[in-house]
């Protein structure tokens, strides 16, 4: 006999994710992260990725207007993504400034970066509980498949936008990932 549902359908007012690392160490008196500095950078990033990979939008099907929360749980902010080629959006928000969204993808910053870059398997991250999906699962599956069909490294595309410092930062992050995998 199947177990009857015991948990209410998720609302967009779900509980906050665990805030790890950096945010937990941030003193209470510290000012909020200066997200306004990030917004033009994020806008450039999403526009560049869209320009370089126009075919990816076909895999989103009806979900190209969905709003995804990309939640790096060890950073003090989340990102809102709307992968609509005619109305692209990638903006940073504080967790207490969240608006409505369709799906939320939560994991460590490094895991999310390696996932987007095709270096990690999303199912494996899910199995190990290092990735959490809530909201519209079909939209997330479409986004995952759209990103996974990109041959070139998204992380390298973004790093190249920032020249030598960008590439150095990416190299450092990849070393962190390799070190973690060999431990």
């Amino acid at each position: 006999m199947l177990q009857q549902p015991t948990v209410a359908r998720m609302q967009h007012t779900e509980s906050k994710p665990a805030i790890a690392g950096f945010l937990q160490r941030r003193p209470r008196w510290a000012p909020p992260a200066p997200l306004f500095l990030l917004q033009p950078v994020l806008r450039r990033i999403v526009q560049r990725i869209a320009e370089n990979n126009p075919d990816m939008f076909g895999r989103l099907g009806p979900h190209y207007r969905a709003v995804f929360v990309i939640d790096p749980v060890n950073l003090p902010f989340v990102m809102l993504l709307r992968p609509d080629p005619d109305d692209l959006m990638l903006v940073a928000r504080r967790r207490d400034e969240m608006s409505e969204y369709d799906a939320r993808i939560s994991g460590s910053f490094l895991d999310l970066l390696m996932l987007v870059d095709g270096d990690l398997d999303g199912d494996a991250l899910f199995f190990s509980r290092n990735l959490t999906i809530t909201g519209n699962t079909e939209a997330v599956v479409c986004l995952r498949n759209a990103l996974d069909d990109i041959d070139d490294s998204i992380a390298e595309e973004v790093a190249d936008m920032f020249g030598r410092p960008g590439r150095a930062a990416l190299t450092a992050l990849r070393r962190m990932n390799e070190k973690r995998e060999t431990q």
Partner: protein
Amino acid sequence: MIRPELVCPAGTPSAMRTAVDAGADAVYCGFQNATNARNFPGLNFTVPELERAVAHAHAGGTKVLLALNTFPPAGKVDLWKEAADTGARLGVDAFIVADIGVADYIARTHPDIRLHLSVQAAASTPESIRYYCREFNVKRVVLPRILTVPEIKLMADEIPCEIETFIFGNHGLMVEGRCSLTNYITGLSTNMDGVCSPAAQVEYIKDDAGNLSTRLGEYTIDCFSCNESAGYPTICKGRYLTPAHDGPYYAFEEPISLNLSTLLPDLMKAGVTALKIEGRQRSKAYVKSVVSAYRKAVDSIMAGQDPQISDLLALTEGQKETQGAFKSKTWR
């Protein structure tokens, strides 16, 4: 010993290129519709994508096997016929089929293209396999994951076609092609609509304590505590309350993946000529890791060396692996 063909999954063109680069002898894939059993949103190939992919695969010496392994509902057979005609035009090397009507159409219309019998046909006896070979000129059977290696060896002596077995990925013990569990809950059929546990009806709910509930349709099918590995949201791998058991338990199967890396020499000696990696729904990172690992293992066996087996546990469902019925009928 015959060098076995390594048959690898390709859910997207990028995954196919990854499989080819990682050493696949053959890749299997499907169109973006109900004609294949991995009809997941955002997955699979458009016709132009498959055309380019076939050219790329053939340039690398890799065969392309087109999965048309679902069962057409009455009045909708044209979709399967059109898919077969398109695949033939694009130059695929074989069709993987389950339905006898689809098999018959291809055998008569495209007799020069190989037919492989999908695991979805659930053919597990010499009698049934010989029937498919005789009537439709089937060249290869993909065996259900319910036979031991000695049973496969006996089978090889009794059938006139090649044998393909799964070696990694979904454990898949339900009678494939006849499982209606998803249909019971969601109204959609794995076997006719091509999707088990449609993502549109899957929902994950994480509570404040970190427990993760998985729901399919209106049913909670599992709840993982905060430190517990998770599995796919399929009915066959849910935990249920039944009068026969104290507390919730895995009544059908448990979240676990097949990994036959250490059985490879035995499988090859038993007459298995094609080794299949499951996972068209997985990422290209999975494809790269698993295909590379098995390429290395098969090559080392063919060179007369002990197989070099990479650790693939991190990629397994529930972070657990099994040799399933291939090793013993009492694996649980």
